[in-house]
């Protein structure tokens, strides 16, 4: 006799919307289990979810849907290339206009460099363009979030809540956060006591500018990959930018991160973000880059992007940044949509980790 409640069969169908929310980490424990029952019996779903958890993947689905073949009207399928061509032309002129009014691009990643282009995935290039456009589109009032740390003290308080200084936009959610003791008086990687319930395997950590970094041997089994330096090479003649040196220097992984995190420590979030995206473009699963890029996005006010990166860091198989990632993901969610953050904050409280008290205080104030 078969038992009445077969534990291997999902009790509910899996909608696309539920799958996307799962990939974004926006489900309750019960809902997650329901989705995961489907994953256990379906290899296609398992691989699809892994891919959809990549930064930017769920957001890109909207664009993909625009390419859907029309039903019943075959001629529409033939229109797709025309629409794409028009889109490409519009995008080209938009970006041309954007470039002419955005001087930061000229000093950031050297996408015009042919040597760079050999190693720079096209997606990174386009992602950086989008990120820069997002930053430029932010209200000017949000800028102090990124610069406040720098101005606050000669010793940067890097992991303070982003609202520890400067003027804030007149938004209720942000005002409420400002009233809370979200300031962490030390780097979570330096002094965070390990109070979480889940035991973690000890990993080889190093500290760059007092920021925790998982040693590359934990991620790559070696000293880590050598990375080409982002940005314009030092030996490029500014008067002749078209002349590119034949050999582009490479850096050890930790040296590369040292530069990126140095920028982050000084409050240069945008520069740090460029470098970290450069790294993510080649090593999307790099947990160091995921977390610090997410943190930079958070401090810049790019909350949806920050949430995706921090979620990726929180769910990375190398879980050294899990607590910090969940906390900053929750803070970013608070700033994006205060109500949606409650379950995340409650999970942090129930987890009893380093951020539990702050999460509890935040919840009680809301």
């Amino acid at each position: 006799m078969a038992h009445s409640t077969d534990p291997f069969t999902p009790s509910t169908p899996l909608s696309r919307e539920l799958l996307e929310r799962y990939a974004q980490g926006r489900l309750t424990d019960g809902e997650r289990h329901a989705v995961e029952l489907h994953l256990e019996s379906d290899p296609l779903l398992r691989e699809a979810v892994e891919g959809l958890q990549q930064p930017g993947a769920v957001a890109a689905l909207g664009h993909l849907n625009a390419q859907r073949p029309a039903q019943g009207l075959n001629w529409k399928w033939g229109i797709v290339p025309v629409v794409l061509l028009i889109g490409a032309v519009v995008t080209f002129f938009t970006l041309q206009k954007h470039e002419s009014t955005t001087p930061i691009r000229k000093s950031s990643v050297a996408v015009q460099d042919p040597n760079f282009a050999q190693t720079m995935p096209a997606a990174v290039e386009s992602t950086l363009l989008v990120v820069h456009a997002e930053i430029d589109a932010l209200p000017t009032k949000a800028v102090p979030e990124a610069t406040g740390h720098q101005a606050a003290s000669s010793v940067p308080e890097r992991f303070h809540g982003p609202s520890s200084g400067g003027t804030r936009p007149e938004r209720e959610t942000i005002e409420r956060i400002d009233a809370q003791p979200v300031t962490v008086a030390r780097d979570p990687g330096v002094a965070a006591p390990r109070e979480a319930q889940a035991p973690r395997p000890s990993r080889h950590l190093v500290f760059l500018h007092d920021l925790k970094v998982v040693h590359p041997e934990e991620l790559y089994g070696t000293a880590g990959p050598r990375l080409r330096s982002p940005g314009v090479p030092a030996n490029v003649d500014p008067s002749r930018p078209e002349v590119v040196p034949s050999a582009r220097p490479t850096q050890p992984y930790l040296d590369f991160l040292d530069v990126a995190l140095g920028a982050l420590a000084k409050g240069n979030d945008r520069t740090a973000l460029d470098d970290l995206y450069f790294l993510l473009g080649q090593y999307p699963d790099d947990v160091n880059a995921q977390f610090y890029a997410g943190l930079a996005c958070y401090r810049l006010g790019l909350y949806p992007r920050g949430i995706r990166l921090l979620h990726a860091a929180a769910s990375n198989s190398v879980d050294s940044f899990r607590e910090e990632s969940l906390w900053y993901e929750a803070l970013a969610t608070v700033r994006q949509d205060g109500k949606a953050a409650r379950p995340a904050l409650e999970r942090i409280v129930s987890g009893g980790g380093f951020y539990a008290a702050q999460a509890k205080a935040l919840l009680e104030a809301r």
Partner: protein
Amino acid sequence: MFLRNKTAPNLTDEELVARLRAGDRSSLGVLWDRYAHLLFGVAMKYLKDVEAGKDAVMGLFAELPALIGKHEVKRFRPWLHAVMRNRCLMVLRKADPLVRMDPALIEQEDQGGEAALHEASLQELEAAIAQLPEGQEACIRLFYLERNSYQQVAERTGYPLEQVRSHLQNGRRNLRISLERHGPQH
């Protein structure tokens, strides 16, 4: 009225494929709705590039009518999965012919039947679970019987998330083998 979709959305994949093979291209839209987002996820897993992923999905759907005309497709879902995976691997190899694909990267389709799992009685299941290795037993109990999520299982057992998934996959396979070996006891 002539714009209305006349393809019944409740047709099976195989019925839609049969229609598509017969020249009804409107079936393509329904298959797109069912699979485009999943195939994009698969492409993202391997290619890790949004634009390349979108290209892979659009390319596959553009060629789908011709592909199913050339191949006998008994079970569309695993076939489509295999086609997309192979395309992604071809893209990776084209970018770097020296890249050796890690066999572990390519998840194997579960070849075995699942009937033994679904038809087992609770007593049979309990007995089979008790014979599993420690890690697999704990994860199977917490996930399937106590309905914890992967994350909750990881927190309760102390295993990393990837190991929880691995224990669940291996445990489920071992359970099925055990149940099939002993046969129905009822």
